[in-house]
């Protein structure tokens, strides 16, 4: 390794340290404040991706997220495991992702519910997880409601 390489490596390390320091302080705090501010429409638009806060140094509280797995007869979304989404995000956001990922053509008349030991409990997709009184790890079942006829 020549002198130029040593200098270059040292400069690179310094830049990385500065960037990490910024990330751990200013940006990290901004992101944390962003997540913990309830009712912000901007937050809902931008924080709806799964695992969106993972790897940010553990700033976020688990209270602000739920873990979601959606089951349908067209498959599961995500295919394995759970998606981590903000508790103040509307349930419908993940349902629409599931619809697209599982190539479900039409979902008119479909109902979402959570399966608990006590039975199925309906979920309002137009409301957030918090507004539906949901927290923690959620298995959401989604499919057509009781058929018509009789």
């Amino acid at each position, binding site marked *: 390794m020549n002198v130029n390489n040593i200098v270059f490596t040292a400069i690179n390390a310094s830049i990385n340290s500065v960037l990490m320091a910024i990330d751990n302080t200013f940006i990290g705090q901004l992101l944390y404040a962003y997540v913990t501010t309830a009712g912000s429409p901007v937050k809902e638009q931008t924080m709806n991706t799964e695992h969106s806060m993972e790897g940010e140094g553990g700033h976020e509280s688990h209270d602000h997220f739920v873990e979601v797995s959606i089951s*349908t007869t067209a498959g*599961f979304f995500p295919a394995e495991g759970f998606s981590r989404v903000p508790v103040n995000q509307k349930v419908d956001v993940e349902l629409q992702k599931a619809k697209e990922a599982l190539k479900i053509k039409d979902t008119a008349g479909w*109902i979402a519910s959570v399966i608990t*030991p006590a*039975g199925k409990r309906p979920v309002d997709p137009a409301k957030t997880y918090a507004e539906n009184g949901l927290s923690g790890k959620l298995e959401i079942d989604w*499919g*057509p409601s*009781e058929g018509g*006829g009789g």
Partner: protein
Amino acid sequence: MHPAAAKALFDADVAMLTPALGKRRGWTFHSLAFPLVDCSFTASGRTPLRLRLMCIDWNELPPEISLHNADGTLLTTPLANPTGVFNGSPHPVANRQFICMRGSREYHTHPSHVGDPWENLRGHSSYTIGGILTQIWNAWLKGTG
């Protein structure tokens, strides 16, 4: 409907009726081999309901659906506290109790519903084999016993 085409459509539909889905919903699959879907619904405090969907000519025609006891014998007594789609009276063609619901062959061949053709529903996401099962399951969950 050519049997090979019917089987291909059937296999595509039942491919997602997995043990994982069964575990989550309380469904037990006894058969998913063309042309038969044989499935039991279970729930805490409930008598299981076993259904057989005979999917010959799928999906040109909807499945013939029969109700069974847990051991597979034909259910000869009406369900306790049934909800709307479970019709305890004998079907005029099948001569047994039946699922009176859009998506069952018994519904579409019933004199009261022949004006509601299957063609209008065929191919919709709610009328796949899994979709039809889900609709019946949701009806069953509303009942008791």
